[in-house]
């Protein structure tokens, strides 16, 4: 009897999960046809089938929420894999002043809006995080699609993304500690512990990264996959025990892996990441009431507008420092507008705060707008720049070359 009942439940769960995942597959096809990232479409799908949506699915919540958490871990893990410690160092050398401008302008915009809306300061800090971080996933795809990887403003953009991701390694654990809260002393201690744990894992990662990579990187695909996946969960779990966000643990594991292990892990884990991350985005917007989203839509639009301007200013400033001309500066600025996976990860942190539902809805709306409009704007960035500067001479403001060979 128990078996029979169990199998019906399982059948329903399979049908529900299957329908959702199959639907996401279709959405991802649509997204690549349209040449945009699938994240906004996943969010819309979650809205449609979540609380108060068109049709409610009651997929086993435990299962889906665990899968969603794993999605965040894998998103950050593969992000850490993308960078070698060499690249991190060179990013740090050149990127700190633009990184600070980036933080002040863009995190400032979100934080200010949170305060204007009368939110708890912590929720405002989270909204600052949402509007701060550009989406490295969307941006690297856009740069590749538009064949801009060789452009001179591109290293500026990529360095800025590195700095943002590194800043997240501090921001996320600190904010996670603040959310746990308590008295001032307790909070100070938990923030201190969080930073100490991050430093500790980072030191281990840099010190033992090479021997670890050699061990993990050899063997069959199966052993690499299981070994790496297990390690990511272990480190994330250990970090979580200390109230440090597990995602940062996963990010640091990604940084630690080098060479062959890095290559193989990226190849083997990317499909897993795509599966679990899609679950995360859907689950995130599952919990958003579309009515809430409509209520904050105006604010989301306003924040998108302001933070688009601040990102353009950031890119403009950062590119000018490296001697890039006007059009290049504008391209750097517009390509940075897209926000994505990180903004959602940050908003998800605040789900249990008093202003959590509003924060989630605003972040979802905001990412929907910027992830779709950003890539479009940057595609036409040269035309827009030409129109804006119609009455002014094009190109660099500096001395023009005297003779140009035909």
């Amino acid at each position: 009897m128990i078996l029979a009942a169990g199998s019906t439940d399982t059948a329903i769960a399979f049908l529900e999960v299957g329908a959702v995942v199959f639907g996401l597959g279709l959405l991802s096809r649509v997204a690549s046809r349209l040449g945009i990232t699938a994240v906004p479409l996943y969010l819309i799908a979650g809205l449609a089938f979540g609380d108060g949506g068109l049709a409610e699915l009651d997929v086993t919540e435990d299962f889906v929420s665990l899968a969603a958490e794993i999605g965040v871990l894998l998103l950050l893990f593969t992000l850490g894999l993308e960078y070698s410690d060499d690249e991190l160092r060179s990013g740090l050398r050149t990127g700190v002043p633009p990184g600070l401008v980036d933080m002040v302008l863009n995190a400032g915009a979100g934080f200010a809006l949170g305060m204007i809306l009368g939110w708890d300061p912590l929720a405002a800090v989270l909204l600052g995080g949402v509007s701060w971080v550009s989406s490295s996933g969307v941006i690297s795809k856009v740069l590749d699609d538009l064949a801009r990887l060789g452009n001179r403003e591109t290293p500026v953009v990529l360095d800025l993304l590195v700095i943002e991701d590194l800043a997240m390694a501090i921001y996320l654990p600190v904010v996670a500690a603040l959310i746990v809260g308590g008295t001032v002393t307790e909070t100070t201690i938990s923030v201190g512990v969080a930073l100490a744990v991050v430093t500790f894992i980072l030191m281990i990662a840099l010190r033992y990264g090479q021997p670890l990579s050699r061990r993990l990187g050899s063997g069959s695909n199966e052993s690499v996959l299981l070994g790496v996946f297990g390690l990511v969960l272990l480190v994330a779990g250990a970090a979580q025990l200390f109230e440090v966000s597990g995602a940062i643990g996963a990010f640091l594991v990604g940084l630690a892996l080098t060479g062959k292990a890095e290559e193989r892990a990226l190849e083997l884990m990317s499909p897993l990441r795509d599966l679990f991350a899609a679950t995360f985005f859907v689950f995130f917007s599952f919990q958003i009431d579309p009515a809430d989203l409509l209520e904050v839509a105006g604010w989301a639009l306003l924040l998108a507008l302001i933070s688009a301007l601040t990102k353009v200013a950031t890119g403009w400033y950062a590119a000018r420092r490296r001697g890039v001309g006007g059009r290049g500066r504008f391209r750097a600025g517009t390509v940075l507008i897209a926000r994505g996976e990180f903004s959602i990860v940050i908003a998800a942190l605040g789900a249990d705060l008093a202003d959590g539902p509003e924060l989630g809805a605003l972040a979802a709306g905001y990412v929907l707008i910027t992830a779709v409009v950003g890539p479009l704007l940057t595609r036409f960035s040269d035309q827009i720049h030409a129109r804006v500067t119609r009455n002014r001479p094009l190109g660099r403001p500096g001395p023009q070359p005297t003779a140009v060979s035909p």
Partner: protein
Amino acid sequence: MSEVRETKLPGVGVRHEFTSEDGTDVAVIVHHDGRRELVAYDHEDPDSCHSLVHLSEVDSTTLGQLLGISPVTETVSRIRQVIEGLALDWTQLPPDSEAAGLPIGHGEFRTRTGASIVAVIRDDVPVPAPEADFVLAAGDVVVAVGPIAGLDTLRTMLGG
């Protein structure tokens, strides 16, 4: 060889760029996964480029062969990437080299370029760690280690 400028593209790879003799800026983007992309910069907007061709690892070797570059160069470029700021390079002394017939110490290469001559290969026989009084001859292959700029200077001084 023209001066090659190298820029790291975090998460993507490395961009090697040089200015051709007719004044066009050309770059090769080496992706982490081994793909390469050959791009040329716009005259009107020097910050933007157009992609000329995408090459797989095998394609790049083929193109390299067609252009008359030995596969050795690729190995060297790999080594260059491994040790940042330090590279290994070699050059053959042409018959008219000013350094031929003179001892290594005479050229004061290390003082003037920062690059050290670590070996000389004469008639396929390597002479590791040659002393300062080792007399160079035309046709010698000089192997040196040092900063990339220093190696380029050394190459010019040897007439290679």
